[in-house]
């Protein structure tokens, strides 16, 4: 494994050099960190699905300055994104990188990890297992969706387990909130210095929530728990920084609508394709990545509602 990874990285390095000569502008991320609270920066992703135009820069990542270096929250979809992120972090917080924390196991949140593999990579225990289990499959899928942006990307699951509760790095205190619903294990982080919530994909804003690993009742319970924190600012996993509470409220409203709509569709005898073609209310149609994300959610969620609507007759 070590040998093959070195070979992959060596090869990728040589190719990257060549691409600088011939096609430098084409596959470069321009990351613009914004300081959203004292010593806490956010890099906002585009409110889209993975495409060869956006290179998978569709996710929000963050980093917090501490006395012993920055703590990085999520690392993006590709090795190249990870490299651009490491440069951006080093420029904004020159004391180096103390640790990386992954909020969950979806590839846009941890595929930049290999660039930070010399630092501690931490996540919930279940997230570590899920990243190891699904990493290769996600990589196949993203190579297909992103093409050359993925060159040299090798999934590196987080190696250390982070437990729930308060912890401090370099004099900065955080609260780790082990939750679930968007996936089996979703970590939200409260930055205790500024009262800012890094919600991971438990919160979306103006970008349709994604449901490939979702458990809707668990997700709603997690949103309740996060709203109870009364955070001064919320960084959603996708969409703009939120100072008004809109991200958690909008995410809950969408999940409620999604569940009601698909359950009603199955109860009324609609087939899968008819459910795909249902109209979206304007407030949800206006979200980024629609109607594609709704169609993906029908694929994820409709079969179980269909089962519930069809009684056993044999």
């Amino acid at each position: 494994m070590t040998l093959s990874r070195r070979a992959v990285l060596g090869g990728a390095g040589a190719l990257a050099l060549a691409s600088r000569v011939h096609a430098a502008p084409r596959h470069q991320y321009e990351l613009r960190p914004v300081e959203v609270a004292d010593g806490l920066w956010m890099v906002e992703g585009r409110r889209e699905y993975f495409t060869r135009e956006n290179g998978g820069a569709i996710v929000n990542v963050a980093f917090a300055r501490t006395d012993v270096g920055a703590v990085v929250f999520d690392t993006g979809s590709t090795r190249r994104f990870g490299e651009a992120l490491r440069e951006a972090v080093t420029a904004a917080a020159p004391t180096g990188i103390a640790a990386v924390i992954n909020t969950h196991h979806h590839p846009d949140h941890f595929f930049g990890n290999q660039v930070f593999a010399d630092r501690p990579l931490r996540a919930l225990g279940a997230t570590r297992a899920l990243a190891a289990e699904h990493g290769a499959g996600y990589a196949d899928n993203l190579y297909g969706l992103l093409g050359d942006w993925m060159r040299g990307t090798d999934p590196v699951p987080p190696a250390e387990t982070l437990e729930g509760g308060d912890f401090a790095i370099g004099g900065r205190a955080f609260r780790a909130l082990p939750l679930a619903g968007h996936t089996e294990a979703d970590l939200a982080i409260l930055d205790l210095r500024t009262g800012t919530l890094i919600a991971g994909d438990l919160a979306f804003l103006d970008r349709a929530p994604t449901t490939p690993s979702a458990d809707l009742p668990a997700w709603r319970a997690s949103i309740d728990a996060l709203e109870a924190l009364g955070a001064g600012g919320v960084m959603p996993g996708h969409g703009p920084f939120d100072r008004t509470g809109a991200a958690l409220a909008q995410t809950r409203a969408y999940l409620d609508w999604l569940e009601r709509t698909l359950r009603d569709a199955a109860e009324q005898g609609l087939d899968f394709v008819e459910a795909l073609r249902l109209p979206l209310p304007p407030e949800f149609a206006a979200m980024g990545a629609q109607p594609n994300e709704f169609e993906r959610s029908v694929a994820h969620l409709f079969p179980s509602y269909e089962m519930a609507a069809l009684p056993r007759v044999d």
Partner: protein
Amino acid sequence: MLRVAALMLLAALPARALDAPRAPLDDPFRTGMLGYHQIAILGDPERIAFDPRVVVDAPAYAEDSLHVPVMIDASAIPGVRRIVAFVDYGPIPRILEFRPGAAEARLSFRFKIDQSTPIRAAVQTADGSWLLGGAKIDAAGGGCTTPAAAYASDDWEARLGAVRARVWPQTGRVRLRVDHPMDTGLADGIPVFIIQRLALSDAQGGELAALDLYEPVEEDPAFSFDFAQGVLTGPLTLAGRDNNGNAIAATIPVGGLTQ
């Protein structure tokens, strides 16, 4: 000796190649495969044409390669005798044949996709001619070579042939789902094991609609049928069998289930 035999065989064949049908079509998808399937699946009909009344609705991208939903609607065409669904690219192109009988010429189902491909519906009308429609589906693929999910559970044999179904009398919609692995034979060491036939009949035993199924139909397949007002007057009978001789049988009540 073998070579001589091969040459003799070649000489005996008609001049036409396997992908040169009697009625070549200007295929909007330009896959290079349609002519071949016209001959192999449809029997090289002389009268065949694309027709916008053959509507094939499917998602542009297959989120789940094992369950790709499709709705074929040819209800605007009078006198539909049968509908054949097939893909251009895939190890087993033919998916199913639907003989609507007393049902409307509209069917929803799901199938296993192996790679990006158009899915086609070929509709044969009463005079024997064929009308074509299709839709392109993008896919990461692999659906045909994955073992059935059933084998991850201990009770799949107990569930084999279990039928879930419901009739919506107000709209004439019938939905049904049969538990079955629908093994393609392409997953390592697992032979073909599929439902081959399903038919809906009325209480007097008269056949209302029938399906012939092939390997690409999804595991635990689900279907939607539509009937005009007045056709569904009493309980329906579902009968079928798989290629191992297992019978599928159920009675579907009409009305009285919705509350």
